[in-house]
């Protein structure tokens, strides 16, 4: 009797556990549109909780955002939009080293695609060929130069901000040293400015002339993407893709141009803070610049946000100095900085696409731009936008744009992983002295690119 009772109990437990397993499956199977499963919760700010209950209404769209730092502001915009139209927008932010395309592929396999998601450039967009909505007929298209167009000229990417890559400088220090930043348009002028600053280091309170970091494990994206991108696009007009095309064709390098570029990097190696150069970190680099220890820094306009938030204290102590950007003038007469949308939002072709397009339209309009520019600090890519972000770099970007002195950047279309798996280490070797001179740096970069594109 006892045995039978035990048997029944065991059987009951088994059945319950089966049902329990099964019901978990059911939930994920049932609302495939917006439910975020446990496996995906590894994305740091994935809002599993908000998405679960909204799926039933059908009045909701989901946006995967690649800039985790503006997560809160986007949610604010989404709340405002819901208030106005009743359509809920779920913001799911990823960042901090998450491989977004990889996660999206996981979503795709799990039939859990977001309605709007971020794409970083040609290679990202190529993943989704034929699955994105053609937005060419949208009203905002005529209002911007920064929309992403595919090979056939169809607009498939919505630009949401503008970033700039240039040689960022501390205007106060340059003024004290008697250097006119407007004149920094030739290698000789850069060389001279660096020497002047170096000789006045103590009196200006500088640790080093420039904060350049070629560390390859965590900062490969700075050297391998942005700085390498200067070779690709520096000084060219926005639609000139000569050197990018050359690279795309089997990883070729124009050695003559690159040699001049290598000499500029050599200058950075020579005058950078040795404690930062080979084994530094991003935080160290930005903090050094924000606290007035470096006159120049080799990072783009995005550091403005860090300077006024994380490093606000040191920035204030250094006098909230004015900043600006000089061109990376490795050839005589280069007078442009590079500006571009760092990534675009694409609309996935599904039943929600009309709601998604309406939301993007709203974002491009006055209400949306107000939040994106004023709160999130984005520099608007839309011509009709009258708001100005109070980012330290906003002014200099606006000036260059107004004067038409901008180049685009095309490194987003470099073969995937080029910076991380190939170039970053070459820059680090050059910085540490393992690669001795500009000529051998040029040769090795040419060899590495050819090899990487040949795979």
């Amino acid at each position, binding site marked *: 009797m006892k045995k039978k009772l035990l048997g029944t109990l065991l059987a009951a437990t*088994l*059945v319950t*556990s*089966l*049902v329990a*397993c*099964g*019901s978990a*499956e*059911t*939930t994920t*199977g*049932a*609302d495939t549109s917006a439910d975020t499963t446990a496996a995906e919760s590894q994305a740091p700010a994935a809002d599993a909780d908000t998405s679960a209950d909204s799926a039933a209404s059908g009045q909701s769209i989901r946006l995967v955002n690649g800039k985790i730092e503006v997560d809160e502001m986007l949610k604010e915009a989404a709340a405002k939009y819901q208030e106005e139209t009743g359509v809920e927008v779920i913001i799911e932010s990823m960042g901090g080293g998450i*491989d977004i*395309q*990889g996660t999206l*592929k996981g979503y*795709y396999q799990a039939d859990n695609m977001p309605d709007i998601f971020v794409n970083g450039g040609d*290679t990202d967009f190529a*993943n*989704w060929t034929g699955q994105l909505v053609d937005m060419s007929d949208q009203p905002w298209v005529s209002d911007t130069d920064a929309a992403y167009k595919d090979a056939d000229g169809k607009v498939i990417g919505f630009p949401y901000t503008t970033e700039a890559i240039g040689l960022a400088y501390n205007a106060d220090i340059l003024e004290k040293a008697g250097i006119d930043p407007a004149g920094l348009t030739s290698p000789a002028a850069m060389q001279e400015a660096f020497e002047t600053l170096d000789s006045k280091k103590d009196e200006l309170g500088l640790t080093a002339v420039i904060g350049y970091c070629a*560390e*390859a*494990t*965590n900062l*490969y994206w700075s050297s391998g993407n942005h700085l390498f991108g200067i070779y690709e696009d520096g000084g060219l007009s926005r639609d000139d893709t000569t050197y990018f095309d050359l690279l795309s064709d089997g990883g070729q390098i124009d050695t003559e141009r690159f040699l001049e570029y290598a000499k500029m990097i050599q200058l950075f190696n020579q005058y950078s803070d*040795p*404690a930062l*150069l*080979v*084994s530094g*970190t991003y935080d160290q680099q930005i903090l050094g610049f924000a606290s007035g220890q470096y006159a120049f820094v080799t990072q783009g306009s995005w550091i403005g946000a860090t300077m006024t938030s994380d490093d606000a204290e040191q920035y204030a102590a250094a006098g909230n100095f004015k900043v600006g950007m000089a061109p990376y003038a490795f050839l005589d007469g280069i007078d442009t900085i590079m500006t571009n949308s760092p990534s675009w939002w694409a609309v996935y072709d599904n039943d929600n696409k009309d709601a998604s397009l309406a939301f993007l339209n709203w974002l491009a309009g006055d209400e949306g731009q107000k939040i994106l520019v004023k709160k999130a600090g984005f520099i608007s890519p839309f011509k009709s936008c009258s708001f100005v972000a109070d980012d330290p770099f906003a002014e200099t970007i606006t000036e260059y744009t107004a004067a038409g002195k901008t180049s685009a950047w095309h490194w987003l279309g470099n073969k*995937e*992983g080029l910076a*991380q*798996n*190939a*170039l*970053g*280490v*070459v820059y*680090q*070797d050059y910085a*540490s002295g*393992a690669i001795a001179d500009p000529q051998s740096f040029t040769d*090795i970069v040419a*060899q*590495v690119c050819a*090899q990487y594109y040949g*795979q």
Partner: protein
Amino acid sequence: MNGLGKKVLSPILLIAGILMMIIALVLDFSGAETTLRGPMLIIGAVLFFVGLYLFPTLRYHRAIVYFIFLFPLLFTFAVTVIIPLILGIGYSFTDWTGIRYTQVVGFANYTAMFKDPAFIWSVLITFLFVALNMILVNLVGFLLALLCTSGLRGGGFFRASYFLPNLIGGIVLGYIWQFVFSNVLIGLTGNISMISQTKSALFAIIVVYIWQYAGYIMLIYITGLTQIPGDVLEAAKIDGASPVQTLFQVKIPMIASTITICTFLTLTSAFKQFDVNMALTNGTGSVPNFLGNYLSNGTQMLALNIYNTAISKNNYALGQAKAVLFFIILAIVSLIQVRMSNKKEVEL
């Protein structure tokens, strides 16, 4: 319940269960909006198993019960291990992008992998790493075990603290040590961190790996050492054996099977080294001239190479092919391990 009842009820339940499951699956694949398909699938499965249990046979009744009890585990194992493995081998012969594949490419991925000097380098340093670690981790672990069993004051404390690093996740450990090498020890190496030069970075990974894993191996050795019968040791002592003689002539032969276990544990885990490698150097490091090529992945072990091929280089098919090779290597190692430990057990 009598025999007749069973005879009627069982087929009804079986058929109803199968039907319900099929309908639920069809609903799911056709993307129908009803939310009832989940419960339907579960109830169908339960009905099916009840029907199976009541199946009117005496001969196979026992086998059926075994099957019912084993089913949840087998099902989970199939879904999470067997099916992905088969799919993965299939994908390695295509140009799969992680989203879709357009054509079958045969062995192209496999030939491409061996033409890539970076991959060959990864394989070589992985073998080097495995060989060094197998020796060093065991040596350090064994010495620590001797120390902890030598009747030292506070032995329990040391035992716990040596084991502690093993409880920290590899990624966290990697970042902690990255900080140590780049910020603390940098004074000794002159502004250039150990982990930014290939040779010293490989050394750094080995150090961190030993730090993480030796404590775990130590625990196994301690178990082995404490299981040596006291009378054997006492007899050795009475016969006048020195501590060194006792160690080499008595203790080590007595724990031979433990040594085999530990060797294979370190072997397989060193092969699969991924998290520390990723967090500490992410595979970076330059090799100026390897087979005439400049390599950027000086410290990239096999597992990290596979991951980077698929994720960062966005070449899922090639990564999958490498993973199949990795699977074959590990399968061979495991088979040898099983053979050897079986032999040892017979001897003892």
